[in-house]
């Protein structure tokens, strides 16, 4: 299933001189530049492209379940690290301003005292409804950043069901959950669209497989790794997963859809498709930083409720690019 206008939109990615010049200057596929200009205008597009040229700042999330975060901060400072709290994203996230060596090689990391996670990624999990006795589903859980954060926020009480289809990535998921010493979880190696659950979960996270355009700063190959056709396939996959997520959700409960991408095809158009298909869901505002979802794209008017979704831009928020949206399933009347 796909958005009714997505193919028309993908045909609108024309190339003019500005687009061609910017795509040559920064090394992007022209359709990506066309998209940014459509949303941001030319001037701000250049700011975005410049921001994407700088390396992504490193950050960590303290695991307050097994260590006091002030103690962790002190231990790392004694090893020459310089940290700065980023409380507007999460009370547990620290920017690593200076690292004498790889933050992934400290004894504290191996002891499970922290996870290397981006601030935007962490703030999205804070947008979920999480309670200690909840049954929670993470539909695309590997490598485990958000899964371990969910377990941390519910203090390892309740149950997390973590699903991952990729055989190679599921090993990291298991290792990270065990490294951080969580126990109230089950990992399933399954396709998340083929699970037998029906209205089972109190809270769901779908951090959908995406083009990963939001982390071009970390992996510049993503500037040219996908065609518009790939984007269409990913959009269809994301829509099918989100439809399933709504099926798995209990009535009156919420799910969070997220995609590490700046492409509306992976964000707003996915939500718009779902809102057109289902009449038993609402968009709920999320109390996290970020900009509003866009309401119009290449002349296509999107559902006005999508403005309650969140967008994160590398040049505005300063970190990963992301899209997130919170959906509530209505109860039966």
């Amino acid at each position, binding site marked *: 299933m796909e958005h009714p206008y997505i193919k028309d939109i993908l045909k609108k990615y024309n190339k003019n001189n500005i687009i061609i010049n910017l795509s040559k200057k920064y090394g992007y596929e022209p359709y990506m530049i066309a998209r940014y200009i459509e949303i941001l205008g030319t001037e701000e597009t250049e700011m975005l492209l410049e921001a994407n040229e700088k390396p992504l700042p490193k950050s960590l999330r303290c695991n307050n379940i097994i260590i006091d975060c002030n103690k962790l901060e002190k231990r790392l400072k004694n090893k020459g690290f310089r940290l700065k709290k980023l409380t507007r994203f999460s009370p547990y996230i620290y920017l690593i301003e200076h690292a004498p060596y790889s933050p*992934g*090689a400290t*004894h504290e990391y*191996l*002891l*499970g005292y922290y996870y290397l996670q981006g601030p935007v990624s962490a703030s999205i999990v804070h947008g979920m409804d999480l309670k200690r006795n909840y*049954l929670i589903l993470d539909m695309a859980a590997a*490598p485990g950043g958000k899964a371990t954060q969910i377990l941390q926020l519910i203090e390892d009480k309740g*149950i997390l*069901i973590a699903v*991952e289809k990729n055989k*190679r*990535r*599921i*090993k*990291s*998921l*298991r*290792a990270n*959950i*065990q*490294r951080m*010493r969580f*126990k*109230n*979880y*089950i*990992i*399933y*190696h*399954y396709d998340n669209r083929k*699970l*037998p*659950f029906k209205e089972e979960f109190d809270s769901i996270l779908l951090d959908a497989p995406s083009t990963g355009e939001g982390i071009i700063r970390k992996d510049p190959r993503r500037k040219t790794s996908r065609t518009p056709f790939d984007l269409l396939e990913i959009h269809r996959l994301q829509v099918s997963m989100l439809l399933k997520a709504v099926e798995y959700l209990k009535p009156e409960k919420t799910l969070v859809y997220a995609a590490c991408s700046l492409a509306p095809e992976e964000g707003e158009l996915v939500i718009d498709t779902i809102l057109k298909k289902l009449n038993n869901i609402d968009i709920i505002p999320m109390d996290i930083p970020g900009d509003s979802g866009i309401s119009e794209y290449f002349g296509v008017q999107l559902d006005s409720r999508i403005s309650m979704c969140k967008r994160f831009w590398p040049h505005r928020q300063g970190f990963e690019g992301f899209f997130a949206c919170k959906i509530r399933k209505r109860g039966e009347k």
Partner: protein
Amino acid sequence: MNKKLEKLNEYEINFIKLFLSKLKLNKNIIEKYTRGLWGLSIEGGTHKDIFKPKFNLIKFIEKYNMIPYSLGLYIGLIGRRGFEPSLPLAHELAPFCKSHNIKCVILNIFEEKKFLYGKTIILQNRENVPMGYVLVVNRFYEALGWAIIKRPNNKYWMQNRLLRPVRDLGWYLRKGG
């Protein structure tokens, strides 16, 4: 490949009890960590992964009859080399190094670095460290992993001991995924 999740039988539980008793853990602790154990294996596979899930996890699994990939506290595995304890189990038992005088070795900061690279360490003039399987901790009693202690072959080094890592925390970077 057919996977199976089933309760451990008496023989398997006793196998693990024997290992824990050799660590000089008391009966209550051994009972705690050998109660409610489940094994996950693949048909024709070489080992069985052992987990200690809480009751609510088992209830969920039984409801949907789906075999998990991993769940709960990972205790270790039973394979061709017998029982191999896990890193999560090391974390669970580390506090008992201080309070219960179990078979533990405390490494200094230099030894700790070497151990986490999976390297064998010569414990100099440490004749009093226990032999065989030991839990390895640092000076803060934080678990670093599992090791086997042996006497060196050289007769001039009889006051030393060789500490060979079996599973150290560095495994998470080298092999963990």
